[in-house]
């Protein structure tokens, strides 16, 4: 029973990892940009949630109504103001610039909030649990997983059922020809980053409710996000969810064997997938 419990807990944890990864996957899919600052943007969203809840005295989930649009706005401005200028045939400039952005974000957060670990207070929901078939599952992890599924489904809908998604896919296929259709590439990329950071806002708030955080934890979130994307296969959002779940389950099983093995087991699972199937488990069907 303990093992089943570990697997179920890991699956639910995977939902959070999928939320870390969804924005990365989206940005890479649309504009081939690897955003090294993604983890720090998640932490930025967590701090924004913290400030909003403290100042306005509202529940973290209500704070999402403010943090999501603010993060989306930051994403749009960031993309059009800085990141669009780094995109081109050379893949190095975006890596260097987002790495620099990561350093700036960490230090700005350190100045503003100090290095003390902080946590958001979500009230009774943090400790509430429900019995499910002999297991006791936390309400928060269940909710997180449900939100992750909803977010992935929502992104999938946007990508394949709306004109915005059509613009994303067309620009990703061939940005010159997309321009001929009247699509302004810089605007389309701005919208993609806005959408990615709106998802990041959700991930950051859920992270900040689940665990304590400080300005330095972004790097590990980035790694988890990357691993989920690679395990799942590039460009496949449902694959990213599966990747997050595999990573989460590996970690909880590792922790079950020995608490010190939690992170190691996740990385090993990632390396095994990379060695056996470098393209990921569910890569987007190639055309």
């Amino acid at each position, binding site marked *: 029973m303990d093992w089943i419990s570990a697997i179920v807990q890991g699956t639910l944890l995977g939902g959070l990892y999928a939320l870390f990864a969804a924005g990365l996957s989206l940005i890479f899919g649309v504009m081939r940009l690897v955003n090294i600052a993604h983890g720090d943007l998640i932490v930025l969203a967590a701090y924004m949630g913290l400030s909003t809840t403290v100042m306005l005295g509202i529940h973290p989930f209500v704070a999402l109504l403010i943090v999501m649009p603010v993060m989306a706005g930051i994403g749009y401005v960031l993309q059009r103001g800085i990141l669009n200028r780094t995109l081109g045939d050379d893949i190095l400039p975006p890596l260097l610039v987002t790495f620099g952005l990561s350093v700036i974000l960490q230090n700005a957060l350190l100045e503003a909030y100090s290095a003390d670990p902080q946590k958001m207070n979500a009230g009774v929901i943090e400790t509430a649990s429900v019995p499910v078939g002999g297991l006791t599952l936390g309400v928060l992890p269940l909710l997180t997983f449900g939100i992750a599924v909803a977010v992935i489904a929502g992104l999938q809908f946007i990508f394949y059922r709306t*004109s915005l998604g*059509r*613009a994303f896919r067309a620009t990703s296929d061939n940005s010159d020809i997309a*321009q*001929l*259709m009247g*699509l*302004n590439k810089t605007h389309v990329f701005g919208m993609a980053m806005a959408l990615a950071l709106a998802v990041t806002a959700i991930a950051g708030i859920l992270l900040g409710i689940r665990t304590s955080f400080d300005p330095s934890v972004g790097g590990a979130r980035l790694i988890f996000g990357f691993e989920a994307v690679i395990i799942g296969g590039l460009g496949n959002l449902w694959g990213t969810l599966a990747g997050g779940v595999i990573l989460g389950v590996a970690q909880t099983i590792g922790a079950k064997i020995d608490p010190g093995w939690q992170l190691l087991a996740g990385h090993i699972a990632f390396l095994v997938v990379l060695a056996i199937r470098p393209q990921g488990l569910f890569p987007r069907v190639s*055309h």
Partner: protein
Amino acid sequence: MPDPVLSLRSLDAHYGDFQALFGIDMDISEGEVVAIIGANGAGKTTLLRSIAGLLKNEAAQVTYQGGSIGALRADQVAHKGIALVPEGRQLFPSLSVEENLLIGAQTGRAGPWSLDKVYTLFPILKERKDQASTTLSGGQQQMVAIGRALMANPDLILFDEISLGLAPVIIKSIYDALPSIVGDGMTAMIVEQDISKAMSVSSRVYCLQEGRVSLTGATNTISRDDITRAYFGVEA
């Protein structure tokens, strides 16, 4: 002669250090079908890409409907009503046939062309609408590329090598469809390797040679010998 809808004045184009066009002057009137012919590398595709905004120019080098558009981006030019059917079709592989057509209407310009009208022109596309565009034959892909450009309801449509790599019977069916496309008063520029095809649908012709206009005139006044000279730059 009415005011030209499109005027090029001393249009140059460069790819890095390489100059592809040298001081091109052209005037295209509304409703005209103009053929652009010339050997490989003469600058025909470069000319269309410059007009469509994929290559940057000085603002005043391209005038369209009375406004200077030379310095606009391709998406801004598209909103002005110029559509390009690019060489080699260049469909979006991630989009279905119908999505490829719908994205052509992204500019939201009003006009006679709609999804239904494109499907009436090319009925086969309706049967294939949910397929990936890459699963179509070359001729069907060319129909999608043309339909995609028409969906923008352009005033000026640029065709780049629409018969390239297609079987003769397909080329014939596409050229048979051309009159119903440009019949609505649409202005068209057609780049074509097949000179007789180009001459058969156009009223005027420009011949390019090494980035310069080497011959121009009404289609019915130009002889084969003139073209051969202008094409290759040698006495025939």
